């Protein structure tokens, strides 16, 4: 369990996140949605241990403030929005950096094959020998995900669940790879790990999430299952957008079509 209790985050003198309560249990895919500037990324950075915060964040029952970087690295991996690379590493070398944390969870000796397996997962087979800096933005993002997967390859290690923290994992991907990546994250949760993702696409969030947190002006505005959260009034209030939420017939998964706004505006 990653559990945040009454967490506030300041950057400089400005308060970005106020009194956020948050839980992500093993086996769950939890997404965080909200308009630009609502504090999603700042909150996620606090959850990742990158920023100082007031309140409490615990991972696996341990106070995060007392954990060393390597201890954190062995139970959670973080995918950044974008990562620039200072030197001309090959794709394989970048992915292998995920093993720096040292506890992939596979048998010793298997580590050597892990980069190839991770690359195959993100649909980048055959890219191992390419130079990272020469790839497109979307390909780079998938390489980074492969690196992150190497770090916490086994969703559960020594009985302890591990976590994937993803900051807009599909922002620069085409539709096929959006689904590939979302499936990887959901699969990670199904196998006993936890997945936390910031998403902008509310439809993807509705399709994949067990729970959704909606952030608005630095606070958690709502939380619950996609059906609980994605309601006309909440969308209108938080996103300031007059959208109609529909339901997909067999399962009742909510979805939104931007056409309804386009029509009213026209």
């Amino acid at each position, binding site marked *: 369990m990653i559990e945040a209790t009454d967490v506030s985050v300041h950057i400089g003198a400005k308060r970005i996140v106020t009194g956020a309560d948050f839980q992500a249990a093993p086996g769950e895919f939890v997404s965080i949605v909200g308009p630009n500037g609502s504090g999603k990324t700042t909150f996620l950075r606090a959850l990742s241990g990158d920023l100082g915060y007031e309140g409490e964040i615990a991972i696996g029952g341990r106070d995060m403030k007392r954990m060393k970087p390597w201890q954190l690295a062995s139970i959670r991996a973080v995918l*950044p929005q974008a990562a620039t690379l200072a030197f001309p*590493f090959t794709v394989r070398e970048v992915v292998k950096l995920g093993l*720096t944390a040292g506890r992939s969870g596979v048998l010793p000796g298997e580590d050597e094959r892990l980069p190839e397996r991770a690359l195959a997962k993100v649909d980048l087979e055959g890219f191992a020998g390419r130079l990272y800096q020469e790839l497109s933005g979307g390909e780079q993002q998938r390489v980074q995900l492969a690196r992150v997967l190497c770090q916490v390859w086994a969703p559960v290690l020594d009985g302890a669940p591990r976590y994937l923290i993803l900051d807009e994992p599909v922002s620069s991907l085409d539709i096929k790879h959006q689904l590939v990546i979302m499936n990887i994250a959901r699969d990670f949760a199904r196998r006993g790990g936890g997945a936390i993702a910031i998403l902008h696409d509310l439809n993807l969030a509705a399709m994949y999430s067990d729970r959704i947190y909606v952030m608005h002006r630095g606070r958690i505005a709502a939380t619950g299952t996609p059906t609980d959260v994605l309601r006309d009034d909440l969308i209108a209030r938080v996103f300031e957008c007059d959208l109609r939420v529909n339901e997909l017939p067999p399962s009742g998964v909510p979805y939104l079509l931007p056409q309804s706004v386009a029509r009213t505006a026209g």
Partner: protein
Amino acid sequence: MTDQVMDAPSALRRPEGDRSGRARLAILLCAAMLVVIAIGSLGWGASDASALGVVLDMVTGGADSVPARDRIIVWDIRLPRVILGMLIGASLAVSGAVMQGLFRNPLADPGLVGVSAGAGLGAIGIIVLGAGVLAPVSAAFGIYALPFAAFLGGLATTLILYRVATRRGQTSVATMLLAGIALGALAGAASGLLVYVADDRQLRDLTFWNLGSLAGATWTKIAAAGPIIALSLVASPFLARGLNGLSLGETTAHHLGIPVQRLKNVAIVMVAAAVGASVAVSGGIGFVGIVVPHLLRLAIGPDHRYLLPASALLGACLLLVADAVSRTIVAPAELPIGIVTAAVGAPFFLWILLRRRGILDL
């Protein structure tokens, strides 16, 4: 994909994109090259003294078969010079590689960004004021006073540079280079002031020191700078994994479990110590720190686990060759080695800039 596999030059079967086999091979080659060059340097000089003869003489214990003059030339002139050359070459190249890793930028070099100038200011301070204001320092540190002062000068410059050029874990190339120019100029101005107040004997010391030369290599100098440089070189491999992680940025390095702040502190102290010790005994020898790691990255990739040891070996080779050139090109006189490395390194630096012109347009 198949053609890339066919292209792989090494017979070692490694997965595509894994350059560790090639890197290990390169390290072995550099080591072999260093042995050959070092032995060559021992035997090569103005005198026809034979290094082999002297060594054989030592081994067999035949005390009189080799003239005493040859023994002195080999043991007390050439050998210290070769050892000092290797130490300084290795130290400058590794410092360059570590700084580039720390600043996440292939253009960072102790000479270019003012660290050497800062170390120089420390050294000049001791030479000029060592008998006056700084007498207690000279007395307390003995032969280590000069390298220690240079270390402090280098450390101060590196710290200021890092503070100025890095914001929220991101280093601006342009700011780093410009701040380096400013700091170098400031250290130069302060050094100039010290030179201005120096007396005649100090001026002579300064001139010899400033030329950048291995000519005055003695066992004493090795005793003064050697341990510091050796310690830095031994410490550098422990930074390798951290620097690899850092190339993805400070935040990601932290996510990978790297204690980023400690890594930066150790790297800065290590660079300052290695550069300080080198500058203290050999003056300003430029461009080794930028040329060597850059060539190696082209050959074996940027993985610091291989780049750092390979830089040490190739840096040592390069400086011995440069020293051989400086000794012979205007024989019987000697050209300061700093001139040789600058003559080769400066055009090389321009070439790097031309290849990567984009990175300065920030």
